[in-house]
Every structure is written in structure tokens, then in C-alpha cells.
């Protein structure tokens, strides 16, 4: 019996108790002992953990591992009820017997599957909302530190992409588009019933260190192997119970529990090698020399910047910096239990070196899940996990020029010089102010150590079998310390005499939750309800200190105070938020045909002013199990046909604290007077006293179907989410001294279709072929942004104003110039007043005024795909199985800032992306594709244009996994031995010029700009699972 079924059984047991509550008081009489065994009808194998109940009472027992049970019944007239998840329930009258053996027949497992929903669980057939339910086996295999990587492409409506290859960096996770302009678009993660605060523990990268803007993945501290199931709640009916945090969808993560019986020991492990999947194709040394010199000959650059010679064979800086790197995971779990209690214990090590030198992540986790339960009386449980994360960072952020990181330097550095000079020191180009890439990688060191403990404890008491009270306490505590050292071997370190930074942070959250649960059945009516109250508190604090000018730099951050005392800088911050909520839900079903769900949550948050502190989030859903209707169910075409519809209101409160208050804060810079610095205090913000939640009204209509005995099954769904009262940083006239004030203004809509289809194409005893496919369309439209005509935003590096927020268009559409081609000899140059020459880029003069300026900008791309899909093929032949997973993203654009640097070089001698330069315009090659690059900045900063914003659609062979179940069941020692080989990120089909079409250097997941992307890894690995 698996851990899953044990859990499902417990839930089902509630239903049973409800059914018999009405007669339970009349059941006492003379007792008699019944014995027997329960087995599967198909193969006669014993079923352990099956429930045996006396009908009409609360008394019951479970079968032992050999399937045997014994139970005292009050009289010969009693009836026993046998239940086991996935099997048809049986009622057997005792009729005077003392031995009753039972064979149980498998039921329609798919529809009987238990799905966890917020504050409860239901059978899949009773679902009224839109929920994607994934069991551990459904997740994408591979070398994954965090669970979101395993969800990639798995569920319709859920767009997950990797933004950078840096180990442990956050994924972009968007459920049904983006609901908010400035508040978070991340879903709420709920781990074992605890809604998790995902804010980073540490902000800031450390003085002088160019860290990635992309935050650390908050799910890194959760061991994916511990996960039993993941439910993704998408529509309002499912998410409204999470109220003000539900608008972006909710991801419920349930960890494994022990199962009855003797201890089971399982080892899972793998070891793999990662290599760089794709690096930028830059000019090689000889191309660099010939192209740059040719441009000088044509009047570009500067005569003294000519490339005279190539030292040795030059240097491929990317190759110097990148490497093949190992990744491994080792997981040991113990589980078992007795009739009333169970345990699950696991230990995990995960280690991943980065494909860029000096980067990687290590994780150690331990978990203890305990549960004790007497059916119908009480239950008590604890889930506790603790993790230690060691991060090692290489500078790969978006800093510029002298402040650039190692990856940036490797892309831009002169390829004609050698790594080291004749003295063995790092070679530095006199023409380029960026530091040597390897000096940056080696000299700029950052490490972080994070401890995270997450736990919940609950106790439940049954006043009646149909009525219970449950109290839950939860906590999630993270402590982190980041040490950064800029060594004098780097230019920055040399200039500053070494820079040491220590940042510490702690973040904690506490949950107190009480719920009353009611389940009952009256004839064909079934009612299930929950009401409750929760209180949550979130604290965070940070400290950072940095020093410079170390005459003895040996001790680095271990003696941070040994630098120049005048240059020491310190800072700190502290935050507190509280959330108090009331929630309730009723599920009603009639005759297994008509299902209704009503839910609500009232959330009170300290983020909002007194008058708007509480928000109310109701939802309603209706579902109709058509397959249970006589007019459908007569033939066997439909094994399932369910129509469902839901509507509700959900909220978003993911904005900074205290925006409704007028306060003063430390100015980010001191004033300089009398040759010293003095602390300045400035107004914190333009306060918005009437601030309240964002509200998302979501409509969802879907049909779930199963054909030919569920040989083909699927879901077709339409969603329409309209967010109103957007938490929008309304641009204030800068003459007020403020840029913006967060107000509830404007609205935005996301709508689209979701399709899920699974077919058991071939299903024989030896050979099986299953195809699972999903497809999502997204249509995002900003409807209203208040009085402002538009909001132009999007800054990175030297690019500013890359995107626009404008009613009628998708959020953060790229806003720039259309390139018509290249000015050719013989063109009519009188048509323009701009200083252009043949070979320069010809922009579209939208208003025909003869000059290219801001008025000629238009929307040239969008950051949302038209549609995305995932396709999984699973082929099994006897004990061999092959899984192939492909995903696709179509109709999306991406701004490459590395292409911007290629088209508009920061300085002449930097290296460039090869393609445009090798095929550039010359009088003898009058192309319209690429300019001559002789005078690339003649027309100023028109950097956001249709040459730099390009199509970023792709199809990716994400995973191939080949596994073999070694038949060991008879060996007596192992219970299971599976060996597998997995390949990850094996191939990508795309027209995009860059490291990866999914790359994004911004922390934001809606606006996308690719810049100095840490290369993505291609991984091949071998692993095994051993069960004892």
C-alpha cells in the first residue's frame, strides 16, 4: 500500500463516519469476534490498510500487512463495510459467520482519486473548480533542485520557464497570464497547509558585486523527493478560499506520509554532468580583427583602435569561463507505522556546480512527518523540515562597464588577447575598461548560507463523527548570511583596497489556524463544510555592513572591520505584517449529479489603512456530472462527462508594506558637508491612505471528459480573469518630487483556453504508450490605467523605456522603432534631416516629419506568448520505460540587450555577436538586414527596435528518461531496484539569437530583457532507486 492511498483512505473514512452517524447510538449489544482477510480480486494479493467498519457505528479497524483483520461486532445482525481507495466499497452482513474473507474489485481510480484543495480535500469526481493535480510520478524528471522546475510544461494554464542557468535561481511561474502590473504575479505556495511567505531573506548583492537581479528560488529549501502531490488551483472557486493571496493561483504542495506496516527504506540518487547548452556566437579572433579593421578603413572607430595582432590564437572568453559541471542528489527515506500512527523521515543531499566557474549550490535537508489518528475520535500530526543551503555565486548580473560581472566581461572582452600577460598577471586590454573576465570570476566572491525550518503541527478532535474541530500551528523561519569579497586581484578590488560585505537577514512567519469541519449525508444529499479563522504574522529584518581599504586583505569578511574605518558603511531594516482572516466553504452534491460549491474568505491585512483593512472574497461554482445521468450513461462512450462553471473574486496584496502611511525614512545617500557625510531623512513615499486590494473577478467554464472507459480523457476550459482596482504605481507629475503613488486604479484582463488531453494509445500487458498533452492560450490586455495616457517603463543597463503599459495592449509591450532596412547609396537623403549615411539603419518615420524621434515609436512585441504547449510520451515495455517530454512557446518576443550592445557598441573594441557583423552592409554587400556599423550611434539611442526585439518562440526537447525496473521482487533483499538515465534540455528549436529564448535578466517576470544570461545547462545523468 502506498503512502498516497493511506492518505486518501483517511479522508474517505470521514465520509463513512458521516453516513453512519445517525444510527451510531443504537449499536451496543453482545460482542462477537470476526476474523478474515482482504485481497485484490484481480490477482489475489493481500490488501493491507483496508478499512473495515461496522455499519452504523464509529468502530472500525484496518487490515494488517498480510491483509488480515479482526474486529468485534455487536451482534450477528451487524454489517461490515470494507473500503479501500481505488476499490469498490463492499457491505457484507455478518449473518452469524466468524470468518469473512473479501475480494475487492478495482474501481474507476481516476474519478475516485483524492484531490487536495484549500482547507480540505475532495474526490476528483466531486471537483467543481479548476485544479491541476499532479502526483510525484507526473512531475518532470531530471536534476532539479526545486519543485517548480518539475512542473514545467506539465499543467495547462501554468507557464513556467527558467530565466537563467544559474543554479538555484528563481523560475518564472505564471498561472493564466499576469493579473497585476506592479504587485506580484507569483502564485501562492502552500506547503502542508502553510501559506508560505516567499519574500527573499536577503536583499542586496553586496558592495561591488554584480549579482543577478533574479532572486533565489524560495522553494530551494524544499526537497522535491519529499513531495507526494501538487495541486495547482487556478479558478476562483478553488482559490477564493485563499482570498487576498489567491489571485495568481495557488500551488498546494503535500509532502509524503508514512504508511502502515513495517519500516520501508528507500534510496534515490543520481549523478549527472552538465554542459553549456548554448553560448553566444561572437566574433572569433580573426573575424574580430578583419571586421574591426575593415570598419576603421571605412571611417568608423578610431585609427588607434586598429587590431594589430592576435596574441597566440586569441581567447574564447566564454569557453575560459564556462565548464562542464557535476550535479548529484542522494536521498534516503524511512517510512512505516502502526495501525494508528505513521512516520516518514527523509534525508537529502543535493549538490550542483554551475556551468560557470565559481558558482554552485549545495543543499542538505531533513524531514520528519508524523501522524497519529484514531478514526472518528482524534488526529494529531506534525510535518517538520529543515534545510541548509550553501550558495556560491559568480558575478553574472547586469552591471555595466567597470561594474560588469564575469559573464558580461566574457561576452564583451577583446578576443585577440591572451588570458595572462607575460608576467602571469591577468591580461587587461588597454581599449576596454571592463576587467578581465577571469579576474572578475576569481576576484569577486560571494557566498551565502541559509537555514530554513518549516513546520506545521495540527490536532483535530471529533465532537461527532461528522463534526470536528481542528487547530493548526505553523512556522517558517529562515536565517541567511551572505559574505562578499572583492579581492584586489580584480580592478574594482584594486581600486578600493578590497571590499568586504556581510549581509544577514532573518525572516519568520507564524500561523495560527482553527477550523470546524462538517461532513454529512442525507439520502442523496451530501454536505461538506468548513469554517475557520486564521492569524498570520510575518517578520523580517536585515543588516548589512561593508568596508573598504584593507591593507592586509587576507582575512576578507572574517575581519570586516580591519579596513579604512572612514569608509565603513552599515545599514539595517525591519518589517512587520499581519494578516487575520475568516474563511468558509460549503460543498453540496445531489445524487452524484449536481455539485455546488460556495466559498468565501474575509482577509484583514496590516498593509492597508483602517478603512480598507478587510477584503471579502466570495466564489460560487456549479458542476454537473452528465455521465451519471441516464440519458448519457446508457452506452459506454462516456466514462466521464462533467460540465462545470465557476465565478468568484480573489485578491492580491503582494505590495510593499505601509504604503498607506506618511512616514520618513533614511535617505539612501548622505549629504556631504564640511568634508564629511551626514545622515539625511526624507519623506518615504507619497502615501495612499485609501489603498486596498487588487480584485480579480474570474470566470471559468470547463468540460471534463473521459471516453471509452477513460482510454481518452481530457479537459477543455475557458478562463476570463479581469483584475480591477489594480495596485498601480500611478505616475505622479515629477514636479511633486515623487515618481509615483501606488493607487487602486485601472484594470486588466487575461483570457484564454486550456486544453488537456491524455490518451492510453496502446495498452497491452507488455507494451503501453501514453500520450499526455496540454495547450494554453493567453490573451493579456490592459484595459484601463486611470488618467495617464500610458506608462513607459523598463530599464536595464543603458536601456531605458523599453516597454509601455497602454490600454488595449498587452502589459509591458515592447515600445520602440521599426527598422525598415538600411540606408542605401542612391536613396533620397533629402527626405530626412537626420545625419545618416549609406549603411546606417533606416528607421520607419512614422509621422513622416523627416526626423526620427520619440514620436516614431510603436509597439514592436509583447512578452506574453500566444500559446504554449507540453507533450509527454511515455512508452513502457515490460520493465523498461521511456519518457519524452517536449514543450513549446509561440508568439512571444524578447529584447536582447546583448544585441543592443552589438548594434550600438559601448566602445569599438568590445567583442560583438558575430552574425550581424559578418554580414554587415558594405558598398559591395548592399543588404537591408544589417547596417555597416561604421557610425552606429549617429542616430542616438534608438536601441529598442525590431532588430533587438525579436521573436523568441521555441520548441524544446526538455527531458528524455529511460528507466528499467530490475525485477528483484523475489530476491528478498531489495523490494525495488530501478535504474534510469535522463537527459535534460537536450535541444531547442528557435530563431532567437542569444543564449536562450526563455532568458530574462530582470527580477520581474512580465517584462523580459535578456542580458548577460548565465548559460543554460544541458544535463545527462544516471540514477537509481533502491527499496528495501
Amino acid at each position, binding site marked *: 500500500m502506498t503512502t498516497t492511498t493511506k492518505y486518501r483512505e483517511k479522508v474517505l473514512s470521514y465520509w463513512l463516519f458521516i453516513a453512519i452517524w445517525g444510527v451510531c447510538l443504537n449499536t451496543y449489544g453482545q460482542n462477537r469476534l470476526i476474523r478474515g482477510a482482504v485481497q485484490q480480486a484481480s490477482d489475489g494479493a493481500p490488501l493491507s490498510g483496508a478499512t473495515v467498519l461496522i455499519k452504523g457505528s464509529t468502530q472500525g479497524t484496518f487490515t494488517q500487512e498480510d491483509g488480515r483483520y479482526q474486529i468485534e461486532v455487536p451482534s450477528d445482525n451487524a454489517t461490515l463495510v470494507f473500503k479501500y481507495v481505488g476499490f469498490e466499497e463492499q457491505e457484507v452482513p455478518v449473518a452469524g459467520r466468524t470468518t469473512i474473507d473479501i475480494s475487492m474489485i478495482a474501481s474507476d481510480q481516476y474519478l475516485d482519486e483524492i484531490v487536495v484543495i484549500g482547507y480540505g480535500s475532495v474526490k476528483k469526481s466531486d471537483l467543481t473548480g479548476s485544479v491541476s493535480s499532479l502526483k510525484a510520478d507526473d512531475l518532470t524528471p531530471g536534476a532539479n533542485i526545486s519543485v517548480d522546475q518539475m512542473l514545467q510544461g506539465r499543467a495547462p494554464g501554468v507557464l513556467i520557464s527558467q530565466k537563467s542557468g544559474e543554479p538555484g535561481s528563481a523560475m518564472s511561474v505564471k498561472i493564466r497570464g499576469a493579473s497585476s502590473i506592479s504587485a506580484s504575479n507569483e502564485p501562492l505556495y502552500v506547503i502542508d497547509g502553510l501559506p508560505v511567505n516567499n519574500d527573499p531573506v536577503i536583499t542586496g548583492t553586496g558592495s561591488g558585486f554584480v549579482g543577478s537581479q533574479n532572486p533565489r528560488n524560495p522553494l530551494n529549501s524544499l526537497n522535491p523527493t519529499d513531495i507526494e502531490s501538487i495541486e495547482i488551483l487556478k479558478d476562483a472557486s478553488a482559490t477564493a478560499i485563499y482570498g487576498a493571496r489567491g489571485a495568481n493561483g495557488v500551488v498546494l504542495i503535500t509532502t509524503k506520509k508514512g504508511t502502515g506496516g513495517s519500516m520501508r527504506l528507500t534510496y534515490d540518487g543520481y549523478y549527472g554532468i552538465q554542459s553549456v547548452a548554448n553560448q553566444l556566437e561572437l566574433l572569433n579572433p580573426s573575424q574580430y580583427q578583419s571586421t574591426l579593421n575593415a570598419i576603421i578603413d571605412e571611417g568608423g572607430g578610431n585609427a588607434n583602435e586598429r587590431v594589430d595582432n592576435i596574441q597566440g590564437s586569441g581567447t574564447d572568453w566564454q569557453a575560459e569561463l564556462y565548464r562542464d559541471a557535476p550535479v548529484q542528489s542522494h536521498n534516503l527515506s524511512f517510512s512505516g507505522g502502526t495501525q494508528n500512527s505513521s512516520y516518514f523521515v527523509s534525508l537529502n543531499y543535493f549538490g550542483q556546480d554551475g556551468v560557470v566557474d565559481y558558482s554552485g549550490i549545495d543543499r542538505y535537508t531533513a524531514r520528519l512527518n508524523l501522524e497519529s489518528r484514531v478514526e472518528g475520535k482524534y488526529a494529531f500530526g506534525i510535518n517538520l523540515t529543515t534545510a541548509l543551503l550553501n550558495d556560491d555565486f559568480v558575478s553574472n548580473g547586469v552591471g555595466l562597464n567597470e561594474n560588469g560581472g564575469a559573464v558580461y566581461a566574457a561576452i564583451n572582452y577583446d578576443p585577440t588577447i591572451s588570458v595572462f600577460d607575460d608576467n602571469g598577471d591577468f591580461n587587461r586590454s588597454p581599449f576596454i575598461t571592463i576587467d578581465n573576465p577571469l579576474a572578475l570570476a576569481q576576484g569577486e566572491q560571494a557566498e551565502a548560507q541559509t537555514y530554513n525550518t518549516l513546520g506545521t503541527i495540527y490536532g483535530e478532535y471529533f465532537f461527532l463523527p461528522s463534526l470536528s474541530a481542528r487547530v493548526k500551528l505553523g512556522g517558517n523561519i529562515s536565517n541567511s548570511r551572505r559574505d562578499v569579497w572583492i579581492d584586489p586581484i580584480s580592478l574594482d578590488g584594486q581600486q578600493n583596497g578590497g571590499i568586504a560585505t556581510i549581509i544577514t537577514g532573518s525572516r519568520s512567519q507564524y500561523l495560527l489556524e482553527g477550523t470546524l469541519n462538517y461532513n454529512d449525508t442525507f439520502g442523496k444529499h451530501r454536505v461538506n463544510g468548513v469554517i475557520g479563522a486564521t492569524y498570520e504574522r510575518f517578520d523580517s529584518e536585515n543588516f548589512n555592513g561593508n568596508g573598504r581599504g584593507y591593507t592586509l586583505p587576507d582575512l576578507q569578511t572574517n575581519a570586516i572591520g580591519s579596513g579604512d574605518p572612514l569608509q565603513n558603511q552599515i545599514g539595517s531594516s525591519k518589517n512587520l505584517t499581519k494578516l487575520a482572516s475568516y474563511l468558509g466553504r460549503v460543498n453540496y452534491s445531489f445524487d452524484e449529479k449536481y455539485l455546488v460549491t460556495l466559498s468565501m474568505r474575509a482577509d484583514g491585512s*496590516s498593509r492597508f489603512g483602517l478603512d480598507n483593512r478587510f477584503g471579502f472574497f466570495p466564489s460560487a461554482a456549479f458542476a454537473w456530472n452528465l455521465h451519471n445521468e441516464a440519458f448519457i450513461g446508457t452506452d459506454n462512450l462516456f466514462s466521464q462527462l462533467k460540465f462545470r462553471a465557476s465565478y468568484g473574486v480573489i485578491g492580491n496584496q503582494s505590495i510593499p508594506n505601509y504604503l498607506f502611511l506618511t*512616514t520618513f525614512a533614511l535617505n539612501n545617500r548622505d549629504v556631504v558637508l564640511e568634508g564629511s557625510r551626514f545622515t539625511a531623512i526624507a519623506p518615504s513615499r507619497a502615501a495612499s491612505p485609501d489603498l486596498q486590494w487588487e480584485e480579480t473577478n474570474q470566470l471559468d467554464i470547463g468540460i471534463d471528459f473521459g471516453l471509452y472507459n477513460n482510454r481518452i480523457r481530457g479537459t477543455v476550459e475557458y478562463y476570463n480573469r479581469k483584475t480591477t482596482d489594480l495596485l498601480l504605481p500611478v505616475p505622479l507629475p*515629477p514636479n511633486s518630487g515623487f515618481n509615483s503613488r501606488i493607487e487602486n486604479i485601472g484594470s486588466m484582463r487575461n483570457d484564454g483556453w486550456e486544453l488537456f488531453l491524455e490518451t492510453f494509445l496502446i495498452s497491452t500487458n507488455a507494451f503501453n504508450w501514453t500520450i499526455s498533452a496540454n495547450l494554453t492560450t493567453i490573451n493579456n490586455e490592459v484595459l484601463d490605467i486611470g488618467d495617464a495616457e500610458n506608462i513607459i517603463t523598463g530599464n536595464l543597463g543603458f536601456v531605458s523605456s523599453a516597454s509601455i503599459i497602454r490600454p488595449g495592449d498587452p502589459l509591458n509591450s515592447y515600445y520602440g522603432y521599426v527598422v525598415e532596412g538600411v540606408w542605401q547609396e542612391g536613396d533620397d537623403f533629402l527626405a530626412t534631416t537626420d545625419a545618416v549615411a549609406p549603411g546606417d539603419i533606416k528607421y520607419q518615420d512614422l509621422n513622416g516629419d523627416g526626423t526620427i524621434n520619440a514620436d516614431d515609436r510603436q509597439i514592436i512585441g509583447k512578452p506574453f506568448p500566444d500559446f504554449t504547449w507540453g507533450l509527454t510520451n511515455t512508452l513502457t515495455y515490460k520493465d523498461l520505460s521511456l519518457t519524452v517530454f517536449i514543450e513549446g512557446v509561440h508568439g512571444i518576443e524578447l529584447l536582447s540587450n546583448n544585441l543592443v550592445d552589438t548594434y550600438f557598441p559601448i566602445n569599438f573594441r568590445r567583442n560583438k555577436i558575430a552574425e550581424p557583423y559578418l554580414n554587415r552592409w558594405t558598398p559591395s554587400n548592399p543588404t537591408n538586414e544589417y547596417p555597416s556599423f561604421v557610425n552606429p550611434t549617429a542616430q542616438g539611442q534608438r536601441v529598442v527596435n525590431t532588430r533587438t526585439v525579436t521573436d523568441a518562440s521555441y520548441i524544446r526537447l526538455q527531458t528524455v528518461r529511460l528507466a528499467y525496473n530490475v525485477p528483484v521482487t523475489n530476491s528478498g533483499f531489495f523490494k525495488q531496484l530501478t535504474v534510469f538515465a535522463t537527459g535534460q534540455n537536450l535541444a531547442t528549436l528557435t530563431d532567437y539569437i542569444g543564449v536562450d529564448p526563455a532568458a530574462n535578466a530582470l527580477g520581474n517576470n512580465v517584462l523580459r530583457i535578456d542580458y548577460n544570461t548565465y548559460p543554460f545547462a544541458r544535463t545527462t545523468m544516471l540514477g537509481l532507486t533502491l527499496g528495501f
Partner: protein
Amino acid sequence: MKSLYKILCLLLLTITLFSCEETLEVVPPGEFSPSTVLSNEEGITALLYAAYVQFQYELGYKNVINMMEVSTDMAFNTGGGENRTLSLFIAWTWDESVGWIANDLWARPYRAIRNANTLLDNLDEAGDVPEATKNQLAAEARFIRAKSYADLYNWMGPVPLRTSTEQEDALPRASDEEMLAFIESELTASVSDLPNPGEESQYGRATKGSALGILTKFYLNTRQWDKVVQSANQIEALGYYELMPDFESVFAIGNEANRELLLVFPKLAEAGYGNNFSNGSFPPNFLRSVTLPQYEWTTSMANWATQYRLQDDFVNTYDKENDERFKLIIDTYINRDGDTVQLSTSPNNTRCLKYFDQNAIGNHHGNDFPVIRYSDILLSWAEALNELNGPTAEALELVNRVRRRAGLADLTNAEASSTDAFRDLILQERGWEFVAEGKRREDLVRQGKFVSLAQERNIANADAFRELFPIPETELNANPMATQNPGY
């Protein structure tokens, strides 16, 4: 089980009772409440400091200097990310979308104004502050606000006149008269409560000299010649200011707080607080200049990709033999490989090295940015006298004081033969004196040459409307009452 039952009931009750609104009261633990800041001298001074932070431009003053010079006959720029913006100013194609206009020329002064307004709005409530202190704090805030408006007026013409934090978000542009009257009266009013130069509590804070200096320049740029003379006389009457004997030392780190400086933006050789102009002035691989060998680049200094260059037609007007000021222009330098490099072999490639700190750290040189120097007062005074009375001996002497310090011979009546001739000579003198101090644009505009000189440089987009910069689109998009300058 009974006890568990009781505990559960108790917990449920607790949650239900305490999940009420009072528990949601949160006092921001990391922010100051208005009552803490605004009730005492320390808090209000810290708020005044925040106005000074914006006023002093943090690290952004190099942008202002460059915009005001590459658009004229003086400076030039290539390379680096800055060139993406500066190339617009070189080609006269700047528009309302330019980030530097929105941030450095607009949002920054308005943040200084906001902080000053916040102080002025709340000063009356600050019971614990002595009256005299209040008066001086108010005078400094009014000075910062008026100087910010003078800059805005100089760049964009009349702008929304925000004088209190209580005004509505949307605010129309003031009339020309309102603007002129406000700046003049505020500066005049602040003079009386500001300390005498040398008596300010901390160097870098406003003095009577700073306010009169700004007022003089405001009168000059608005062509109120007789008032220029008046206020220059008031400065003279302070009896404090004089020319440093040696031009180069005016900017040297060791001579900070010298008596030539009426107003500076103080800088420190510390990360985040420096003068970062030199990083762009350094030519590639720079080690030291031939004319100023003591200015030697060290490995603790940065050298930027962008190149702050000067136009040959401007540099060639210098008396290269005698003019002491020309020493700060680099033509020939020794690079780190020991080679001698001559910059002027490429067009428009010489550099100005006014701000050099031997102890610079990274990007950050400690040299203060001069905003008003005494030589500027003398030349402004001379210019006003010339406009009023022609090239009088008094006016000539004012110019010659500046020339003598630079090692040049006195101007003669023959050279300054007419008002027009003298005006041109003063303009030329101002160029040599104030290169890399960001004054060229206003000087040319005042003399009506900003556009015509650009046309002479064959810049096709050199239209007359560009005498004013545009109101940035960030303002136009958010302020329905704001109107754009004509032509944009």
C-alpha cells in the same frame, strides 16, 4: 481526551476573539513617524540635508555638465553608454523621451523642492526649535528651492511652481512673470537670514554669498543688467571673495573652501560620493598628462568607456602658450605602456582635466564641483556693465582681473572697441574659464548664439525652438495641466 478537547476549544476561542482589527495595527518598525522628525531641530536638519542631497546632484552632475556643453561649440563625446544619450545632444535631436532630461534636469530639482517644501510646511509646528534657528533653516530651504527653480527656468522656461506639499498633483506651468518674481523674491528674502560666507556651520551649506551668487546669475541670464550690477556690488560688499592666485589650484582637492567659491557641490573620494567627471576625461590607457605631470593615474582609479572630449574649434581659440588654463586641457599624454600619445591627431579629441584627485577611489574623485566662482561674478558684472554702458574701464578691469590670473595680457580698449566686440570677448573668456563647468549653453542662449552656432556647425536639426529643452514626457503623461514647449 477531555483535556485535548478543552485545549482545542480554548485555542479556537482565542483565534476567533483575537482576529479582530486591533491586532492588525502595525507601527512601521524601520521608518520614522512624522512627529519624530518634524518636532525637533535634529529631525528638521536631517530633512534639510535630504534637500541638499538632491541639490548636490549625488553622482549625476556630470550629466548636466555634458548636456550643457556637447550641445554647444565646446565639448564632444564618443563611446560608452553615455554616448547613447549625448549623441542626441550633439546632433540636436533630443526630445521629451530623453531619460537625462526627465531625471537630471527635472525630477532631481523637483525632489530638492519637495524636501524644501516639506520643511517649510512644517517648520511652524516644530515647537522645540529656537526662532533664530528656524529662520536660518527656512532661509536655506528657500534658497535650495529658488536655485532649483532658477535652473528649471533656465532649461525649460516657466514650469509648475510648487511651493507647498499641499498643492494638487496636477499643476499648470506658472506665467513668466510669476516665475521671475518668485525666484527673485525668494533669493532676496533668503539672503538676510543666511550666514556670512565663512561663518556657515558646515562648509557646503548656503551663505549670503551663495544666494547672491545665484541671484546675480539669475539676473544675468534673464538680462536684468542693472540688477546684476546691484547684486554683484552686494557680493563685493561682503568683503570675502577673491580670485585664487593660481587657476589650477581653484579645483585642487587641497584648496577646497577657498575664497573664490560662492557655491559648490561638495564631493568626497568615497564610493557613492565622488566627483566622477575625470573618469570620462581620461583618454584610453591614460597614465599622465605632459602639461600636468603631477596628475598621474593610479591603479586605484577608474577610466571609463565614454570619452569626454573637446571640440577643436574651441580648443584652438586658447592662447596655448600663455594661458595657464590651457594646462588643464590634455592634448599629449603618456599611456600606461610608456608611449606618448597625441590626442589632437583625431578630430575633437582633447580633454579637460579640471577635477583630479590623486587619492581617488575607483570612480570617485574628491574634488568639489564649483557652481558659482568669483571669476563668474566678475565676468557677469563686466557683461552687465558692457550691456548698460559699453566697454568702460571699470568693465574692462573686471575682465582683466580674470585674465591676469590666467597669465594673459590685459584687454585693451582697442580690442574691446565696442559693446558688441566686448560682448564677444567676454563670451570667449567665459569659455576658457568655465569649460567643464556646465555654463556654455546658458551663455550662448543669453547672447543669442546657441542656435546660430549650431547652424554654423551644419547641424540640420538646429531649430530655434531648441533654445529651451522639452518638458519631459513623464511630466506630460502624468500632469494633464502641463503643456509642452513649442516645437517639441
